[in-house]
């Protein structure tokens, strides 16, 4: 360790210097790995957002030359007048989805926050398998490099939607093979991470940290890890099968007599395109909860801390979370109502889908009720957490019509669906992740982020997020398909609402501008932020007992947990918070 470590007998043998590579690049410290994950995730979020901003140009001003970028993109992507070709639009769409989900939100929410915060909250010195943790990050990194590199392939990156439906994805000439190889890296990374998270939570909790004293964030990470562990392998299987279809010309997802470009394709046939959808959505529905549960965990921590009240209904929230995790495995085919799989199947999946909305509502209601009567501190983290609640509410409630098979038929594949799930993951999950960044930044760096710049980040973001996504609902209800490279202007029914595209695009670009205060704040605060002590937010959970920034091995005092996670405003106490584990000296 290069930094002075608080002297404690357990750590004395580790005062030797570590090389730069061991300390920052190939580190086995969960905090360094967490930061690596978070920075990678944030960078890919920005990149994926960039892809979308280019798409939004085409939607707002179809077939007009793309400013600035036109000449850089090559003739495969841009037509003679410098406007976007439809294949390029598809490439951007597919990679935007893939990158945001698998390389943006998951690495940040699970890899970043999970890795950094969970062991600290458990009172553990590190993850159970530090080296596997490091390998997990580097698998993600390789997956990211593969995905990013695929843009430079002769035919460009994958362009078959982030869902990669067969037979299109089986036969497309673009970078789908690279996509599959990238996905195998990302899946491996998530599996290794999930094993590590669960083992750590089972084995390395500090003495006294019983299951019902676990902070809600840890519960969210545990359930998420189980989802990753059990849902990703079927996608891995599907990926292997699709790779076989592309590389070894098998016909797993290719039906008899498939015609491509007017000719019967040279495949033996006999496969099933629906099989891909089943295997894909068996992962991808739990994946939705992988995106949302860590966000709920972060919001719960921030709300309890800043409303200075215990979480309302902590136990019901935990039980809801576990039930949600279980149910998420048996709702997948609600993405497939219009595939003709039959009304019996549709009835089953529509019933389970209605059931799964109950625990989500319980958690959201409990978070709302937690605010009741609190003396709320409106700092930036709290603003983002409060923003999450109604935004996720809109996202969740607009999902209900999609879960009913009759209502789904007209809405399927329209912009309504895009609006719905973006409300869940963009102003929903992303807001929660921003809340997490502002909340735990002092623990990572020892300094607070700037509050003024934080508010300058939050308010415009809230306005423009809605400016981007709400009009999508209106377009969708008018029947505008999500897959039109011109935003629907060539269709009569879109006439009335096609003009909204410009509003959405301008909102998206303004949203990008609204992220500038965050980026400035992030880098500026690392060096110049206000110094934070161990516990700048007067929080109860265990991570705030460690020094900020915490050394390798985390704690400089033995941790013994003596009470629940959210003992705020306890009557008769001299201060308005009672930490879970009082240091032995006080």
């Amino acid at each position, binding site marked *: 360790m290069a930094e002075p470590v608080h002297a404690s007998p357990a750590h004395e043998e580790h005062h030797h210097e570590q090389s730069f590579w061991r300390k920052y690049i190939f580190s086995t410290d969960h905090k360094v790995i967490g930061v690596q994950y978070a920075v990678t995730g944030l960078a890919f979020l920005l990149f994926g957002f960039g892809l979308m901003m280019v798409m939004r140009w085409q939607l707002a001003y179809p077939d007009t030359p793309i400013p600035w970028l036109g000449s850089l993109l090559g003739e495969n992507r841009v037509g003679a007048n410098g406007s976007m070709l439809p294949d390029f639009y598809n490439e951007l769409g597919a990679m935007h989805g893939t990158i945001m989900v698998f390389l943006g939100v998951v690495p940040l929410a699970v890899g970043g926050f999970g890795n950094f915060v969970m062991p600290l909250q458990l009172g553990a010195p590190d993850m159970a398998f530090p080296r596997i943790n490091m390998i997990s990050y580097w698998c993600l990194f390789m997956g990211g490099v593969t995905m990013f590199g695929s843009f430079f392939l002769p035919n460009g990156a994958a362009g078959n939607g982030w869902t990669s439906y067969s037979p299109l994805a089986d036969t497309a000439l673009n970078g789908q093979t690279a996509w599959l190889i990238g996905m195998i890296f990302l899946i491996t990374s998530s599996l290794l991470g999930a094993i590590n998270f669960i083992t750590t939570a089972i*084995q390395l909790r500090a003495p006294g940290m019983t299951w019902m004293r676990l902070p809600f964030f840890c519960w969210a990470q545990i359930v998420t890890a189980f989802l990753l562990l059990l849902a990703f392998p079927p996608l891995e299987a599907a990926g292997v099968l699709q790779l076989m279809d592309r590389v*070894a010309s098998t016909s797993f997802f290719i039906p008899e007599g498939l015609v491509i470009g007017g000719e019967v394709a040279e495949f033996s046939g006999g496969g099933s395109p629906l099989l891909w959808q089943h295997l894909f959505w068996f992962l991808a529905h739990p994946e939705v909860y992988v995106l949302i549960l860590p966000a709920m965990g972060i919001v719960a921590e921030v709300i309890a801390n800043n409303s200075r009240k215990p979480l309302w209904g902590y136990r019901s929230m935990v039980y809801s979370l576990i039930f949600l995790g279980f149910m998420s495995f048996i709702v997948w085919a609600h993405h497939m109502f219009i595939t003709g799989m039959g009304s019996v199947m549709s009835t089953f999946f529509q019933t389970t889908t209605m059931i799964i909305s109950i625990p989500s509502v319980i958690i959201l209601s409990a978070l709302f009720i937690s605010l009741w009567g609190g003396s709320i501190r409106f700092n930036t983290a709290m603003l983002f957490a409060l923003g999450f609640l109604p935004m996720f509410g809109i996202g969740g409630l607009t999902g209900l019509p999609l879960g009913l098979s009759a209502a789904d038929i007209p809405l399927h594949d329209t912009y309504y669906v895009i609006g719905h799930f973006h409300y869940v993951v963009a102003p929903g999950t992303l807001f929660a992740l921003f809340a997490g960044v502002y909340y735990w930044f002092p623990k990572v760096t020892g300094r607070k982020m700037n509050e003024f710049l934080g508010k300058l980040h939050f308010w415009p973001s809230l306005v423009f997020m809605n400016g981007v996504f709400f009009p999508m609902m209106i377009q969708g209800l008018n029947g505008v398909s999500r897959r039109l490279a011109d935003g629907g202007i060539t269709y009569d029914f879109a006439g009335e609402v096609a003009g909204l595209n410009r509003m959405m695009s301008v909102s998206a670009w303004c949203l990008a501008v609204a992220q500038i205060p965050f980026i400035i704040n992030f880098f500026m605060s690392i060096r110049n932020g206000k110094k934070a002590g161990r516990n700048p937010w007067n929080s109860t959970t265990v991570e705030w007992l460690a020094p900020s920034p915490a050394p390798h091995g985390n704690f400089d005092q033995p941790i013994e947990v003596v009470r629940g996670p959210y003992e705020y405003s306890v009557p008769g106490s001299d201060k308005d918070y009672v930490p879970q584990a009082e240091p032995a000296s006080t």
Partner: protein
Amino acid sequence: MEIPYTVEAHPETGLNNGKIGIWLFLTSEVMLFGALFATFIMLRLGSDGQWAHMQEEAELNIPLATINTIVLIASSLTMVMAWASLMRGQLGRFKLFGWATVGCGGIFLVIKYFEYTAKFAHDHFPSSNTYLAIYFTMTGLHALHVIGGMAWNAYFTGPGSKLFHTNRQWLTDRVEHSGLFWHFVDLVWIFLFPVFYLL
């Protein structure tokens, strides 16, 4: 820095970290092969009655597969013997049985290689039909697992066995965990054999 419960068991769970880790890994493996078996069922049900015909045409070699089954079961036995030898503190016997396990894996792969090349010689490729496609994919993925298990066992029997002199319990645990994986690979074959060759 020492991670607690790497070697000694946690007083409440009665398990060390590695044991929990390997079982979690095996659950994910069950989901992986489960999805592939589900694919097998979907393809078979969707084959319009052509499945039996495709299977007949493929002419898989049942005697060779039977030998392979026996070889793998034998390797599971040697795997347990290797672990038991470590429990008794017999390093020499551990190495003997450890290498025997790796050797059995090798024999399995050689036989598999002859099976594959015989298919290729008759123009039976993964692209020929869906039966051969799923056959090559699942047995191929299983063979990759055999190679992984062999590498794991070879490491602990070879260079990794130095740990015997410094932390015998840890080595014993590690061999137990690689044994669990090896038994799982064996078990997958126990399903693959009847499903592809006998049904």
